């Protein structure tokens, strides 16, 4: 029980479009333990992003319970939700969402700007630390438009890590990247996982899901499969890819 990072019970999310109800999530129940690397799969429109938004406290469920790190989310005010996102959650998006014309280091510092307990000195130190952790120690002062897609995604991952969140949430984080760069990013996620990070990773590519430890499959807002995966090494896949394809 102690190891449970998050737990959802009979979670529903209903969108009202015109006169019709769209059941994006139709009673989903699962929990994620500390140190898991979960891939959430499913066809387009199956509810993956909707689920992730709720896990990330950006959205509220229409029904059901959600507990993260021992906190029942449904009882929290909007302001408390903001603080919770700031302290406990790291987001990685498909399209990076870096601030344009802002250096890597300042992009990474951003979450800590909204945490008054972190001094500007500590903020800078932690940002550098996070950028080193994603292998960008040589790109601290680069602007997003001076970096490759893979590098930009690394900055985004560093930004998600900088507040030391209890869980990393990634929505199609490799969706915009080529195979090789995807492997690199997955290898980075595996490193983080090795260091003990809990990760929930939305993807619709099965050959990306093999780099995780567990797969939850959605269809039409229901879980149709929730199985452990024999994790393969992304670093190895990358090496093979380099040897045989190029």
């Amino acid at each position, binding site marked *: 029980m102690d190891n449970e990072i998050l737990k959802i019970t009979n979670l529903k999310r209903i969108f009202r479009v015109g006169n019709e109800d769209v059941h994006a999530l139709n009673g989903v129940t699962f929990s994620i333990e500390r140190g898991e690397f979960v891939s959430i799969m499913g066809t387009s429109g199956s509810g993956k992003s909707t689920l992730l*938004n709720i896990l*990330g406290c*950006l*959205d509220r469920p229409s029904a059901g319970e959600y507990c993260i790190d021992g906190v029942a989310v449904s009882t929290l005010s*909007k*302001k408390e939700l*903001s*603080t919770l*996102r*700031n*302290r406990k959650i790291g*987001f990685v*998006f498909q399209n990076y*969402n870096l*601030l344009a*014309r802002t250096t890597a280091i300042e992009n990474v510092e*951003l*979450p800590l*700007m*909204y*945490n*008054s307990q972190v001094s*500007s000195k500590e903020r800078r130190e932690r940002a550098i630390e996070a950028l080193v952790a994603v292998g960008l120690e040589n790109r601290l002062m680069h602007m997003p438009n001076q970096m490759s897609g893979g590098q930009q995604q690394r900055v985004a991952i560093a*930004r998600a890590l900088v*507040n030391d969140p209890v869980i990393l949430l990634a929505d199609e984080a490799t969706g915009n990247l080529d195979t090789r760069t995807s492997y690199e990013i997955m290898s980075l996620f595996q490193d983080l996982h090795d260091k003990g990070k809990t990760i929930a990773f939305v993807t619709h590519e099965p050959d990306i899901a093999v780099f995780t430890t567990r797969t939850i499959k959605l269809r039409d807002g229901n879980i149709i499969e929730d199985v452990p995966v024999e994790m393969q090494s992304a670093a190895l896949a990358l090496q093979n890819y380099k040897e045989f394809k190029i």
Partner: protein
Amino acid sequence: MNILSLIRIAIRALMRNKKRAGLTMLGIIIGIASVIAMVSLGQSSTLSVREQLSGMGSNMIMIMPARQMRGGVNMGSASAQSLDMRDLNALEQNTRYVANVSPLVNSSAQLVFGSNNHPGSIQGVAPSYLNIRMYKLESGIMFTDEDVKKYNKVCVIGKTVVENLFKNGENPIGQVVRFGSIPMKVIGVLEAKGQNQMGQDQDDVVLVPYTTVQKRFMAINHFNMLFASATSEEESEYAATEITYILRSNHKIAPGAEDDFEIRTQEELLTTMSSVTQLLTVLLAAIASISLIVGGIGIMNIMYVTVTERTKEIGLRMAIGAQNRDIMLQFLSESVILSLIGGLIGIILGLILSYLLSYVLKWPFVVSQTAILVSFLVCAATGIFFGWYPAKKAANMDPIAALRYE
């Protein structure tokens, strides 16, 4: 997020669109500059009115017949004949706070000298008139009580009259000028005084013994006005009271009845004039503040554009923990900084403008600290007021929708 980083972020964001920020500021710049210039100019003109009025003699007192009502019809003060020789004598002899008294009898005539002529405004006065009105002689002499006694045909003329009659540069002193058909000898020329605040040329004047005007020009026995000067500026009010008392008893006005004359001290005139220019200042400032409002609307417009453009950024900031208040403050500080910088430039520009204008108009240059302070506050208020709704819009965005915005 603390204020310092808010300001830094706002300035950064503005610097990214320098041209746009500059153009947006332009409205505020023009607004503030014109407010500052208008207020400064208004104050300069008030000051210059004060200077000119006290140049006329700040302890001067004017006494004129009251407007006469006949069957409810206002006959004007010119029709009244209540001031005469008896009043003059009384004021010359029985007063303590009155230093000088001079009657004024107006007339006009075509002045002719050789082939030149000029329509002259003739003022029949006593020699003390020079002191009362603070006229100075440039050359020649003033006529004397002797001239007054004998209705002598002598005159003292102002610069404008000299220029119009003596076009060949003759020395006017000793020359004989015809007033219509009456020949008059010029015995003095007044120093130039320039225009007064009402735009009247104070040098277009011909001073003549008042008896000469009364007997030779008009055939009347009354005066149009009396001019007096108090012993000092502070004692103007005492002098006015004294004059009132004497004239009332001279005219046998029953207690409770209204005066048949009017007394105006320079101090009153000063107050009236000042209130007129102050009203003008307020009006001008009001007109100028309209451009400030237009500038504010410009800011609002640009802030809406900025908020829409940065929807994705807003979504991201919310996702990583920014509260509505943080987003609100971020955009609010942008609009406030925009208008404050605009205001600062506007203030500098306005001061330069009013300096140049007062230089051209030969008015004293006044820096109004109140106007500067108020402008600055108004700028901050403009930034907050017109930035409020765009910032509110940003703060109320749904983070998911904002992140998805393309």
